[in-house]
């Protein structure tokens, strides 16, 4: 596992793979796997792993391990602790504390940042404060492209369920839902959903999500070229209209109202996203917007990354399931890209204003990488046709789309 941490660091530093997340994740993965340090374990786990026989017997007398075959074995105790009721867990914590054991550093970070669900939401607020909805407001129909690209999410869920039903993998429905979100190409959303629906897969899902976001410039262009004609790639779009400040202020509130009416399960994610965007656009809270985009999101990123890294533990990560997650994730990306391009082609034929299908792939989100890819592939076809601003519309629409899809998953599978 330590080697996987170093590989992530190498990809992040040398190849620029989403370094803001993958450097902390990779480093956290190394720290979590230092033998004997126990940084990713709770006090009780540390006590069980490195306590002597007498201490283990004490734990066995407190925890309900009667059902286990070897009641005093380490694995049995850990399992019993994790599934015990809160009062028994408290008793075990007393034991560990009295024997001088403490929660590991990364365990504490994980508890505060991810188990509480807070860190991904705070990052989403910062992302909201960095997002410019101008291009989307100038051309709201691009929201459909953001919807289309989420097709990859649901196709992947179906795929994961199928793989499990034919016995190749062993994913529950909530695992499948969490894996599908990788196709949303949105790191905080994927981490938030995984922390709710499949905490034991969180490490693999986060690594897959950020790696594929970094691979967008490799994954998308062949698909985009295969599905479009040269003439379509040369389509010049109408210059975007000016968007007034009032529209920018009202838009996050409109989105919030729709969430409240239609999809309360998406309220934490989209609520914080809209809040961050409102702080930015309202013009009277610049202090707060600046901090949300800088100190606060950076601090949260550091601890979120280390916490995710703490989940890269050998017995859950080095597994055929991780390979399945990686394979399904890339399929989700490809399907999302293709759906976006195809729907854009359809909208171009049906609608009155021309739409270059290349901007459809930006609907997977991966802001702003996917929009830059649309621009680059467009410039290949016509060196004077700048699509960047046009692609920003579907790109931020993709963020909304993934968050909506996340809400659907949570309300269908969770609770």
């Amino acid at each position: 596992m330590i080697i996987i941490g170093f590989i992530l660091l190498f990809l992040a530093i040398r190849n620029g793979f989403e370094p803001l997340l993958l450097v902390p994740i990779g480093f956290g993965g190394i720290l979590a796997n230092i033998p004997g340090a126990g940084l990713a374990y709770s006090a009780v786990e540390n006590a069980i792993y490195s306590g002597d026989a007498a201490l283990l017997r004490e734990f066995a007398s407190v925890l309900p391990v009667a059902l286990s075959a070897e009641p005093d074995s380490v694995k049995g105790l850990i399992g019993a602790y994790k599934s015990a009721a809160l009062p028994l867990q408290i008793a075990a914590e007393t034991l560990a504390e009295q024997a001088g054991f403490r929660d590991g550093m990364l365990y504490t970070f994980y508890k505060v940042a991810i188990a509480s669900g807070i860190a991904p939401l705070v990052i989403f607020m910062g992302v909201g404060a960095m997002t410019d909805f101008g291009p989307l407001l100038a051309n709201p129909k691009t929201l459909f492209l953001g919807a289309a690209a989420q097709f990859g999410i649901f196709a992947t869920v179906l795929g994961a369920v199928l793989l499990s039903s034919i016995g190749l993998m062993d994913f529950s429905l909530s695992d499948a839902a969490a894996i599908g979100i990788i196709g949303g190409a949105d790191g905080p959303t994927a981490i938030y959903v995984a922390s709710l629906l499949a905490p034991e897969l969180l490490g693999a899902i986060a690594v897959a999500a950020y790696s594929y976001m970094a691979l967008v410039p490799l994954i998308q262009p062949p698909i985009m070229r295969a599905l479009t004609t040269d003439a379509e790639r040369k389509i010049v779009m109408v210059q975007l209209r000016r968007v007034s400040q009032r529209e920018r202020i009202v838009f996050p509130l409109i989105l919030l109202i729709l969430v409240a009416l239609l999809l309360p399960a998406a309220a934490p994610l989209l609520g914080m996203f809209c809040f961050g965007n409102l702080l930015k656009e309202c013009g009277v809270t610049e202090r707060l917007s600046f901090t949300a985009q800088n100190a606060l999101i950076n601090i949260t990123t550091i601890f979120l990354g280390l916490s995710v890294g703490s989940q890269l533990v050998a017995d859950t990560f080095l597994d055929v399931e991780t390979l399945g997650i990686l394979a399904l994730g890339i399929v989700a990306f490809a399907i999302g890209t293709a759906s976006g391009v195809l729907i854009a082609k359809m909208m171009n034929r049906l609608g009155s204003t021309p739409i270059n299908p290349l901007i459809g792939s930006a609907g997977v989100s991966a802001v702003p990488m996917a929009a830059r890819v649309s621009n680059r592939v467009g410039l290949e076809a016509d060196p004077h046709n700048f699509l960047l601003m046009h692609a920003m519309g579907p790109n931020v629409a993709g963020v909304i789309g993934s968050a909506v899809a996340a809400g659907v998953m949570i309300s269908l599978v969770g609770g």
Partner: protein
Amino acid sequence: MLYGMGTVVLFLAALVIATMAMSAVIGNYFAQPQRVEPVASGGQASTGSARHIDPTTLSVITAAIHQHRKRGR
């Protein structure tokens, strides 16, 4: 799965309609004098006011940040 994808599409369709209605209402009844900069193609995904800083100024600022960092621990 169909249900899920359907919800996403319906939600975003509702958002498209609401957004277009909102823009129409604001454009017709609450129009502001245009102080907001144009969202031109070829620009960047951020507020535009930073577009025309010359590199010298930027390097001065960056340097100042570095300088700021020096102050003790």
